[in-house]
């Protein structure tokens, strides 16, 4: 049977992608951030997942206001890289895993999570920046990736509690897939940041530190954070943190924190990162 071996939480700031693509990783501004991911790249290379399921949000790239799915699961063979206004990032196209993706779709829908099935979707920095941070700049991504796209732009996004429960349904789906696959789940976005309006630039280190602490040991507590608290305390885009809770729900309750990194700033954003491993499935 397939099993989840670990989880990666990380911010997905577009400027990080630009810094990688333009070779600015050793600039004094960026060097501390990329240093913080060196160990993560080693972990990823050593863990060698067969599949990554990556939870992220689309930033008006694949979806516009025409269609706004709350949860959209990429079931395609491959996913092209979106042009976000600057030309597509020079990274490999993403290969999917339709067998597992379709199995997850069927399993979670019968489990009463009425997701959207997507057979054609471009993926933007929300998905490619986390891959770049964990995998570097390979010619091909090291394994197939199943994109799980969450609406966090149009209010209201799903609640943290719903995301956490969805993560549990995803775990059940993966564990009932009849193939010996080792899966790593990514939860991306956050941490505190606000991109818009006169309050742009908000960073709340205390909120982020508490979130990271609870994320490892008491994620249920985080599922009670209401949307208004995210926006007030962590900024209008800090609400992306609900996506981390899908990953956390997919991991076991007593998953072990392997690594943590926090850095301010990357452009407008507080970068948070954590790696968890399931104790029983490693």
């Amino acid at each position, binding site marked *: 049977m397939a099993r989840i071996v670990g989880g990666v939480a990380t911010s997905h700031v577009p400027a990080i992608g630009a810094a990688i693509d333009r070779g600015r990783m050793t600039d004094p501004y960026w060097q501390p951030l990329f240093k913080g991911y060196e160990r993560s790249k080693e972990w990823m290379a050593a863990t060698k997942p067969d599949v990554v399921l990556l939870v992220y949000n689309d930033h008006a790239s694949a979806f516009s206001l025409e269609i706004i799915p709350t949860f959209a699961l990429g079931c395609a063979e491959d996913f092209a890289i979106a042009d976000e*206004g600057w030309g597509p990032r020079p990274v490999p196209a993403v290969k999917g895993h339709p067998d597992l993706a379709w199995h997850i779709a069927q399993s979670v829908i019968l489990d009463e999570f009425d997701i959207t099935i997507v057979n054609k979707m471009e993926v933007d920095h929300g998905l490619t920046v986390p891959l770049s941070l964990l995998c570097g700049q390979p010619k091909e991504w090291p394994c197939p990736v199943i994109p799980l796209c969450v609406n966090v732009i149009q209010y*209201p996004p799903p609640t943290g509690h719903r995301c956490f429960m969805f993560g549990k349904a995803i775990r059940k789906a993966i564990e009932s897939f009849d193939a010996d696959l080792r899966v790593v789940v990514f939860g991306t976005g956050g941490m505190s940041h606000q991109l818009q309006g006169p309050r742009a630039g908000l960073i709340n280190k205390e909120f982020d530190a508490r979130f990271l602490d609870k994320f490892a040991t008491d994620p249920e507590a985080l599922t009670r954070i209401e949307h208004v608290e995210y926006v007030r305390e962590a900024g209008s885009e800090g609400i992306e943190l609900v996506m981390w809770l899908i990953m956390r729900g997919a991991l076991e309750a007593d998953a072990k924190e392997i690594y943590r990194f926090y850095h301010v700033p990357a452009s407008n954003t507080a970068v948070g990162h954590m790696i968890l491993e399931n104790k029983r499935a490693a």
Partner: protein
Amino acid sequence: MDDAETAAQFDDIPGTTLFDARRSRMGYHLNMFCMSLMKAENREAFKRDEDAYLAQFPMTAEQKKAVRTRDWNGMLRLGGNIYYTSKLGATDGLTFQNLAALMTGSTQEEYLQMMIGGGRPPKGNRSKKEWARG
């Protein structure tokens, strides 16, 4: 908690525009104009003649003016969403950070230094009452 109570709580957060149903409906065509700038040929057409390009979209005169004058906060008030207006920014060669500096009324250098210094703290920035006191 009912809708009005929730809305009042969000409304009390200063300098922040919640992209809710009301704004999404108001800003639909403005945002879809921005979305069209995802295509390189549309960016070129827009740059060649902004008014002619905007004429294709049933936006209000106020929304078109906000676009023409690059009134970034005005666009948000009129239903724009930052992930859409940032595509207009990209067309102008502006990053999210450049736009943030403009929306906060800072110079690019001041904004960069504020972020390097740890960003805008939550203290004093949680409620409109705190901003009113200056």
